[in-house]
């Protein structure tokens, strides 16, 4: 712990000021990052109808309202369905592509990589408008199928990036050894490669899930009242009349993000441990 707070005794006043100042900035910026998120949590337990402090009293009425509302529940259901389906497709397509991209250099590889990553950088509104024009004649607007397809495209880069990163640390001699022992490519993949790159695949899938679960712009264009997703419901709530119900929904989403972060951290640790052993 010594290097954190203690300076060597011969430090000049300027060095001390710099040291303290840097810590102050660090703490302020970290506070700026985290406090706004945490502030909304106590407000969701307010017994009053307004979103400000001090709280008039504590109650769970807003959670009751949230979980008793068909509007919120159906939007949650839609979001979960779309996010799970998009995650499944994106993970399969993305993992296969990452394996292919790693395997050999072929003409147009870097162009292909740029294409695969591009859904991450193209402004969402452009994807939304394009998809809206494209789906309207196909009858895919106002359907969860259309939204799932669009979300799959948006989520795929995250899978490709994380799986590719894991593959860089993967020793291809292992799958060669499996092949030399008589395993066919599928067996070698499922028995050797997949278990080793699984942390990367799972964290890619988590990224994909969050991408879809949090996406609102495409949902605004593609979904009608019947197919509302949770972010869309929150968007309308924040725009029209921000109430403690929004705070309750936000709190549940914060809990979800903490859960996801924990899973990611466990995966990262496991990955480091495995690499440490080898």
């Amino acid at each position, binding site marked *: 712990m010594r290097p954190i707070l203690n300076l060597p005794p011969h430090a000049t006043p300027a060095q001390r000021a710099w040291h303290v100042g840097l810590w102050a900035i660090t703490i302020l*910026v970290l506070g700026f990052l985290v406090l706004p998120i945490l502030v909304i949590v106590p407000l969701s337990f307010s017994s009053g109808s307004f979103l400000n402090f001090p709280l008039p009293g504590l109650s769970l009425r807003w959670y009751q309202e949230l979980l008793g509302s068909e509007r919120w529940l159906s939007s949650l259901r839609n979001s979960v369905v779309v996010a799970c389906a998009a995650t499944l497709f994106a993970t399969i397509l993305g993992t296969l592509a990452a394996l*292919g991209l790693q395997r050999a250099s072929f003409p147009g590889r870097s162009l292909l990589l740029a294409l695969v990553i591009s859904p991450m950088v193209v402004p969402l509104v452009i994807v939304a408008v394009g998809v809206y024009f494209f789906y309207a004649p196909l009858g895919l607007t106002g359907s969860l199928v259309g939204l799932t397809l669009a979300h799959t495209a948006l989520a795929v880069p995250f899978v490709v990036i994380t799986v590719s990163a894991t593959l860089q640390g993967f020793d291809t001699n292992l799958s060669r050894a499996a092949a030399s022992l008589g395993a066919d490519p599928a067996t070698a993949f499922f028995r050797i490669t997949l278990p080793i790159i699984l942390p990367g695949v799972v964290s890619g899938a988590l990224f994909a899930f969050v991408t879809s679960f949090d996406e609102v712009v495409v949902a605004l*264009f593609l979904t009608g009242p019947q197919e509302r997703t949770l972010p869309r419901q*929150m968007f309308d709530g924040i725009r029209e009349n921000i109430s403690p119900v929004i705070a309750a929904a936000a709190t549940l989403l914060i809990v979800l993000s903490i859960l996801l972060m924990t899973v990611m951290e466990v995966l990262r640790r496991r990955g480091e441990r495995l690499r440490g052993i080898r």
Partner: protein
Amino acid sequence: MNLKAQLRRTERRRKLEAVALVAPLFVFLAVFFLAPIGLMLVRSVDNSELPSVMPDTASALRAWDGAGLPPEDVFAAFARELAAGQRDRSLSGVAKRLTYEIPNMRSVLFATARGLPDAPDGTWRQTLAARNPAWSEPETWAVMRRAAAPVTPYYLLAAVDREIDASGSVVRVSADRAIYVDIFARTFWIAAVVTVWCLALGYPLAYKLASLPPRVSNLLMILVLLPFWTSILVRTGAWVVLLQREGPINETLQWIGLIGEPVQLVYNRVGVYVAMVHILLPFMVLPLYSVMRGISPAYVRAATSLGATPFTAFRRVYLPQTIPGIGAGCLLVFILGVGYYITPALVGGAGDQMVSYFVAFFTNQTINWGMAAALGSVLLLATLLLYWVYARLVGVDRMRMG
């Protein structure tokens, strides 16, 4: 020789395998990502409203040289198709398209069409001119001729505040209608300010985190990753609550005595900057941190031991090594910032909306799809340029999340 051939065959098989693995994703993205965006680009020059409803008029207009008033056959075809369009109620698309260039064309068109006789009174030219003086003006027909072409530069020019005047040359639109260049400038300005703030806040934070022992920095990194993983809507909503008139920030400022009464912090530019910096800051910190982690402290130590002041050592030795991280972070934040829609829509006022807002506005509210597509195309072009720079400088495969 045999060995060489075999080697080549194996190599070819490996390549084929790789292609086969990538192909499903490529096909998927081509159909459900590239094709929609391509379609949007096509929409920005699509001009099919008039040709689809009035095919004969369109081809007659295209045959005309465009000088003065068109010949009688154009008038005749137009009168016939106008009456037909009135009967089957297909005129509104044409009316809408013409209204973009001549504001009162909708009423002119419908007034002319209502009760149009089957046969002309003299020539069709005289008949139409008698029903509405607009049809004896060459400018009306110049617009009609432009509307008859299968593609039009109209929307793309309008997206950069340009138009084609009566003589056929590209000119700036009058000052009261010139809004889009300002909107693009505003969009880039907001993204640039947000980028600068993210760098100013993110650099010292990443620097400090990178210089801490891994156990401590991993712990503090959680505080960077929590917002990164939290829904953008949760974060935007939190800022609406924090910045409102009776919100905690106004109350605190009043309590300290800094301000006498609540100041407007949300639904204006301040709110947009604060919320966007909050949302994009992790995208700056993460690449900076990963670059700084890789810099050996020995270099700075060597510089100081050779007599450099700490500031000089930082500026001449440490800072240059972090340039790749600065480049990656700034470009990423700027690219993401330029395309933002949600946050300005929720915490900005009317004067803080960015290009994305107008793309959505023209798609969903005024149903002017040509204009939506044109603004989207210009925005896409700008983004792709930046992405290209990013790929050249940083490399797409270096893009990492967390």
